[in-house]
């Protein structure tokens, strides 16, 4: 089990940003095949492929399409989530920069399934070069007459992690502050402009042409039984050969870290792997013998997430890691619900005190108790994302938290790889914050 090229197939010897080269490798053949089917037949085919969403939650894409309220008199919309802002993730960017036509082809096929005539691709504002490449490809494919009665509009975000959350994304697309919506109603019933809406990640949609090409049965036989296909894994941090690796799902994590990416450099020891982007529970070195697929990772208490591994070596103080990560979630909390808005601040304040050695042992329990009051009690999963990794750091590296408190400061004595790291949050001046309860 190893490399299975689906998303990046053909990129080694072709410039697939160009329409003629994409056509030369059989590109856009899937659109004709899909349009020869009825929407029902197509949804059926997609369901049999069991393509699970690559944006985080792993919900089957075909099943999502089947939930679209096609009886609604309103237009149906397809929205592609290209907000990619999860720390550690840079895979969708590679899809858009190298195979934009595969994403566009996936859009045209998926639009046919749900009878949508308008597709919106929401790309994070910072991805300027990727936007230009994608927009040029959209224009080229439209000019070539490939769109039929569908149009694709690329909409740029403006810098906010929360806009990756699908209902916040919809609000941003509607010209509002990007804040999550309460559910129900769910987007397949009432999404963009209150109309039935299918939302999928870039890599999910860009995999759809492969299902047309291979057929659902053949596709479902790749990867593992519950997680067919491939995924692009981003690997970064303290690793010899960082980058993107497209692998068959179920590939052992150890193979990616050591055989493909070259392991931890500079003769250092592996300390932790955060396997799905910074929002999931971290793994200790003795937990990395796990296949890279949704169910296997969940079985050991973490998540597939954004298929993005952050590798951490033994120079890193885990309290500093927890603190830097917590500052990100405080900064990105949209402020709409109390547990997340207040809780993420409290977590940062307590972690700052522990790092400074100005804390008592009871602060560790306080941190855990605040986390447990955010978990499952926030309007969207960002609150949970702030807690999952923090809880894993406390549970698996508790001795380091204790050492800070007992020694009255960081046991790394200024030598940690994250020493002094400045966060965007530190540049902001806040109105006086609620103090942590004593």
């Amino acid at each position: 089990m190893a490399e299975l090229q689906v998303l990046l197939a053909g990129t080694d010897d072709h410039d697939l940003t160009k329409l003629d080269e994409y056509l030369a490798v059989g590109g856009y053949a899937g659109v004709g095949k899909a349009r020869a089917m009825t929407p029902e037949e197509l949804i059926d085919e997609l369901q049999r492929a069991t393509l699970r969403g690559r944006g985080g939650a792993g919900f089957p894409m075909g099943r999502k399409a089947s939930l679209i309220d096609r009886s609604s008199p309103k237009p149906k919309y397809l929205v592609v989530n290209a907000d990619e802002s999860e720390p550690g993730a840079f895979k969708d960017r590679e899809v858009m920069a190298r195979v934009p036509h595969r994403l566009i082809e996936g859009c045209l096929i998926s639009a046919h399934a749900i009878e949508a005539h308008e597709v919106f691709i929401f790309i994070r504002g910072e991805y300027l070069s990727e936007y230009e490449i994608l927009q040029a490809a959209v224009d080229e494919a439209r000019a070539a007459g490939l769109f039929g009665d569908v149009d694709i509009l690329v909409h740029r975000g403006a810098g906010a992690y929360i806009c990756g959350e699908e209902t916040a994304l919809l609000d941003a697309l509607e010209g509002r502050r990007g804040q999550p919506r309460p559910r129900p109603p769910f987007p397949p019933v009432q999404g963009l402009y209150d109309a039935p809406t299918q939302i999928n990640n870039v890599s999910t949609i860009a995999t759809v042409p492969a299902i047309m090409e291979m057929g659902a049965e053949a596709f479902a036989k790749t990867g593992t039984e519950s997680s067919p296909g491939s995924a692009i894994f981003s690997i970064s941090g303290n690793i010899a050969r960082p980058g993107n690796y497209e692998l068959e799902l179920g590939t052992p994590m150890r193979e990616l870290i050591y055989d493909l990416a070259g392991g931890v450099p500079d003769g250092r020891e592996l300390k932790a792997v955060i396997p799905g982007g910074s929002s999931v529970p971290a793994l200790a070195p003795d937990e990395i013998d796990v296949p890279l697929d949704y169910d296997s990772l969940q079985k050991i208490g973490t998540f597939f997430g954004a298929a993005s591994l952050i590798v951490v070596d033994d120079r890193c103080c885990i309290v500093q890691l927890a603190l830097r990560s917590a500052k990100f979630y405080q900064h990105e909390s949209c402020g709409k619900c109390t547990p997340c808005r207040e809780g993420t601040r409290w977590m940062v304040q307590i972690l700052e005190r522990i790092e400074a050695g100005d804390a008592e042992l009871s602060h560790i329990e306080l941190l855990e108790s605040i986390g447990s009051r955010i978990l499952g009690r926030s309007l969207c999963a960002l609150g949970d994302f702030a807690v999952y990794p923090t809880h894993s750091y406390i549970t698996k590296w508790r001795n380091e938290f204790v050492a800070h408190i007992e020694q009255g400061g960081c046991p790394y004595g200024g030598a940690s790889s994250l020493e002094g790291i400045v966060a965007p949050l530190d540049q902001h001046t806040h109105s006086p914050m609620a103090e942590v309860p004593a």
Partner: protein
Amino acid sequence: MSAFADEVRAIAERYPDPRSATLPALRLAQERHGWLPPEALREVANALDLTPAYCKAVASFYDMYHLAPVGKHLVEVCTNLSCALVGAQRVVEAFESELGVAPGETTTDGEVTFRTVECLGGCGYATVVAVDHRYRQDVTPADVAGIVEELRG
């Protein structure tokens, strides 16, 4: 009607609801003014039949809009985990000493605004620095003087 309003309305027509043009219109206004002064917010509001207060509420939500003046150039260093683990702080410090300002500040000649940002989606090519929105990857402290010189011209 102004050319700006015409341009914004042309964007708005592409969406089922013209309000969807708010983000693109704010970006356009910022490109013209360098930041979003009250006057720019009024122009966006007028073009889309919204209120300036609404436009400000939206703009203040997103990190890429500037509600205070910024320098001619923008230097943004990612200090999220993957970049931080391989030395982003040393890149930050190199910019600090080269520019003579702290993160979040603008040089006194008004040329460069320098700030740290959250993950830019280039984690495998750390440290990532966005210079006027174009990514420089694998940046080390040794590259910083050259980048600053380029900007100062």
